[in-house]
């Protein structure tokens, strides 16, 4: 069937001792889809990946690849391959031998191995490195070999276990773009584990945001960013400022009870609230916007594209990103304004 899912996780659960690492996780990955598991450390994303790869067995639930249940099979009988964070290349084998390994283990005819290895190394732009040993490669080259080694066997699904997190920033961005390019050219199905939201946003067809072994939201990157399912997803994806405010009819105070000059066009109701606004959606010196706060400028950071202005209002701290410098000096009382749609309130 053409519309069959490459991978299905059906209520999968895994506990270590008393700790539930993966709690009732269900994900479907369509053919050619690139799904990212995003979450802080300990959120269960790597455990989920290891269950799919066969390095751990689930306590409950089913894992299906191309519709066939595989959660009872050991790793070496599953049609998955992993790109490990450390690369995990075989140090005693050359680049070509590393890439050929999976083909040999799968009993591919000898005559077919060499051309496929050659082609895989071309795809990751490492032609001419066949006879090198891993110790003679840079970190980025090693990860490309790892990528070629995993892709060359054309598995039903590729598993990425934070493959870029050990690399420095410029290399990370470069390889990220290359993986994205390969995905668009070849159209492999993939599960990608990362704690880097930028990576997740840039590469994914869909993002599954995880916390405490559960999936909090799974959706397209724009949806996860623009319409977060809950407070955790909102704060985990993208930067945000949190105003912890106590709102009573006609006035507002910070959580310690000191009054603050907060103006809301559509107040959420009385009580203690956490109001979130992205720092790029707040505007300086705009008393004319529907919502506003008067705060004192504390200090300024230069971040390249923007200046980041840190403010204090009573005990509240917040920061606003503004392109270019403004005339305000530390200690000045400044009007900060934002649109109602750019604010989200949680109680």
């Amino acid at each position, binding site marked *: 069937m053409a519309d069959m899912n490459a991978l299905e996780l059906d209520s999968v659960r895994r506990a270590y001792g008393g700790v539930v690492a993966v709690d009732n996780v269900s994900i479907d990955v369509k053919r050619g889809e690139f799904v990212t598991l995003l979450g802080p450390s300990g959120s269960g994303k790597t455990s989920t990946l290891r269950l799919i790869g066969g390095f751990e067995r689930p306590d409950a639930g089913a894992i299906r690849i191309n519709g066939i249940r595989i959660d009872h099979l050991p*790793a070496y*009988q599953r049609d*998955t*391959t992993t790109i490990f964070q450390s690369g*995990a290349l*075989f*140090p*005693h084998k050359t680049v070509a031998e590393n890439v050929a*390994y999976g083909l040999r*283990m799968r009993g591919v005819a000898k005559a077919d191995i060499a051309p496929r290895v050659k082609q895989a190394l071309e795809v990751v732009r490492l032609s001419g490195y066949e006879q090198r040993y891993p110790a003679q490669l840079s970190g980025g080259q090693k990860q490309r070999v790892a990528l070629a080694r995993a892709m060359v066997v054309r598995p039903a699904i590729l598993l990425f276990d934070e493959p870029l997190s050990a690399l420095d920033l410029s290399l990370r961005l470069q390889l990220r773009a290359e993986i994205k390019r390969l995905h668009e050219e070849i159209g492999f199905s993939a599960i990608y584990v990362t704690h880097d939201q930028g990576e997740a946003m840039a590469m994914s067809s869909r993002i599954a945001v995880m916390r405490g072994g559960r999936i909090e939201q799974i959706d397209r990157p724009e949806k996860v960013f623009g319409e977060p399912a809950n407070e955790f997803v909102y704060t985990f994806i993208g930067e945000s400022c949190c105003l912890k405010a106590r709102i009573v009819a006609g006035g507002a105070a910070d959580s310690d009870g000191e009054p603050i000059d907060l103006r809301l066009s559509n107040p959420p109701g009385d009580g203690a609230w956490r109001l979130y606004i992205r720092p790029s959606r707040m505007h300086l010196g705009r008393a004319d916007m529907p919502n506003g706060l008067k705060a004192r400028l504390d200090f300024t950071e230069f971040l390249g594209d923007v200046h980041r202005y840190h403010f204090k209002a009573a005990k509240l701290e917040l920061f606003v990103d503004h392109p270019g410098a403004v005339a305000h000096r530390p200690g000045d009382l400044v009007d900060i304004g934002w649109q109602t749609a750019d604010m989200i309130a949680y109680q």
Partner: protein
Amino acid sequence: MSIGTSEMSAPDAARRKAGLRARLAPWLLMAPALLIAVAFFGLPIAFMARMSFNEHIDQRFYVPGFTFDNYAAMLTDQTFRGALFTTMRLALISSVVTVVIGYAFAMLVWLKPKRWRLAFIALALCPLLISEISIIFGWWMFFPKNGLLSYALVSSGLITDKISLMYTEFAAFVGLTYVTLPFCFFILLSIFDGIDKKVLEASADLGSAPLRTFYEVLLPLTKGGIAAAFAQSFIWAVGTYATPSALGPDTLWTIGYLIQEQMLGKHNWPRAAAFSIVLTIGVALVMVIVRALTSKRTALNG
């Protein structure tokens, strides 16, 4: 004028001095270790080599002279040739057994969770805390007819009559293996510790069953360690004399035993020295061969 020349040559002199210092530095840094090696290992061996060419007459340990008799005697001496063969066989078999057991044990410690590690290492250290002689006394309580082994086998019903394994080649093998095992274990463990465990997962991930992974990945990566552990064990087993002669049969004549006999029994120091030199050269040859077999690979793995 004189000021001018001194200005011209000062940088040259400084450069020459720095060059000299750079060339001397490694030697100066090595000097203390080199001094100890020469004083405590080089000199005694040189002295022994000289001794092996001395002559021997009754009632005297040696007479200064220069003769090849002591070496020539080895070629014709049936006892020596027999002892050479016995020593090699004993050392070879016990080393192979030691490496196999040590390998399995080290792999287990490497694969097991960290919390087991300390207990295993303490266990492996135990034999090193006891002297070889004390260990031999231990085996004397273990192997004889009324010893622990016999008692355990009879009371478990595996055998009906008491047995003695004392003064058998088997006892000698067990004794040798026991002494060399800790060294093997630690050498191999350090090799295993240098391997990223993820390569095992990577191998399985790419479709390799556990045994295939062992053969394709683990064995090649530990080859150097196996060779080093084997060499260590072999050298010890070839050279040691107390354990095989205390546990083995009376007919188990090793070279170590012959040296002892020449030295202390027959007071023939030149002959004992000649035996020792041949033994030392033999051990050195084994080392060279083992290194030659493994150095290429280890150099690449860094």
